[in-house]
């Protein structure tokens, strides 16, 4: 097996999970997320010689995925059946999911992209504020503010959901 193939296989096996999760939260669709990860690795294979070190692999792959996701909107799209948010939530919620977890996933879905994307990058991939800023071409303070506001929004939505449940039960 050549060095390139071994390196590629290592990249795939090391990063496909966080990339898929990030892709899912970016596009909110499982099939599209899978395609995005696939396209990301196809592009990574073509440009593997650009990868200077293994340390650089993670931000490099996430940046490719971001570009692939953006490219989706510029490509000619095949007719798609719009799936409701509820449908997607049912699909990510397995039977072991607790009510709170589903409610939180619902709240994450409702966050605006500018809040959700840095939050997912931070939690899924463990990127620092500076790394996220670099990847999203933003200033670090802006990212910090968005991360704080994302959490605040989620807490607000969760609190509101709990109050509604309480009202219905009461």
């Amino acid at each position: 097996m050549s060095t390139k193939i071994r390196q590629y296989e290592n990249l795939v096996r090391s990063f496909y999970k966080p990339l898929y999760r990030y892709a899912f939260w970016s596009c909110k669709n499982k099939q599209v997320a899978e395609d995005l990860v696939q396209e990301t690795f196809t592009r990574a294979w073509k440009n593997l010689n650009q990868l200077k070190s293994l340390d650089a692999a993670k931000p490099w792959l996430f940046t490719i995925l971001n570009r692939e996701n953006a490219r989706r909107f510029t490509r000619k799209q095949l007719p798609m059946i719009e799936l409701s948010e509820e449908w997607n939530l049912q699909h990510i919620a397995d039977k072991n999911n607790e009510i709170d977890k589903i409610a939180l996933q619902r709240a994450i879905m409702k966050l605006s992209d500018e809040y959700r994307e840095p939050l997912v990058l931070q939690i899924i991939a463990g990127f620092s504020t500076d790394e996220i800023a670099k990847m999203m071409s933003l200033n670090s303070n802006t990212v910090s503010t968005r991360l704080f506001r994302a959490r605040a929004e989620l807490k607000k939505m969760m609190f509101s959901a709990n109050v509604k449940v309480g009202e219905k039960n009461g």
Partner: protein
Amino acid sequence: MDELEKKRRELASPSNEIHNLNEADFNDLSEKDLERMSVNYKFEKQLEEAITIEVPENLADKILLNQATQHPGNFFLYKSTLSIAASVALMIFIFLGMQAEKLTDIALAHVYHELDHLVETGSTINADHVRANIKQLGFDLPGLPQNISYAGKCTIGNKQGMHIVVRVNNNPVTLFISSDRVDDKNNFNDNRFNGKIYPTKNGSIIIIGESVQDIEDVYGQTKTI
């Protein structure tokens, strides 16, 4: 970093705030701060669990398979994605148990474990691509039958090898190419399958099928290596 900047970063990364606390800092925390951090910690855990959704089984294998089919010169070929998980499981099984087993026993177990590959699919794999991948293992098989219904890399005998299924006289015949070398040509069988193993310059070839005639036909074509 000034205090404002520090505070901004703490609010943006509550986990860091908790992880960065040393014992002295922890003892200095007020009740109020302790409670706030405890709530934050719980919320971060919930957030992590909610965001960490299930990843489709075999996605990594599907990605590698896709790459293999797009660049067959660089990758081994795979025929069926469904078999990949089974192959990985079998590889582990073989790796753990192989030292006590003979190569022929391992090959037979491999066939039984992946019986799906013997089923006629109606499609064939380009023999030139398969031969190109075999060459990467240091083998040359100019006589490889053209009617190939499955080809995939595998580990056999603790060495990298290849698993190929060809159709001979309308019957499936399995070939294993292994870098493990045997000393002599040998025949073997069990209640269902017959087999032949023979040494080559860089390892060995194992042919397994239900009919002895089919095996001999494949052997006749491939032994000229």
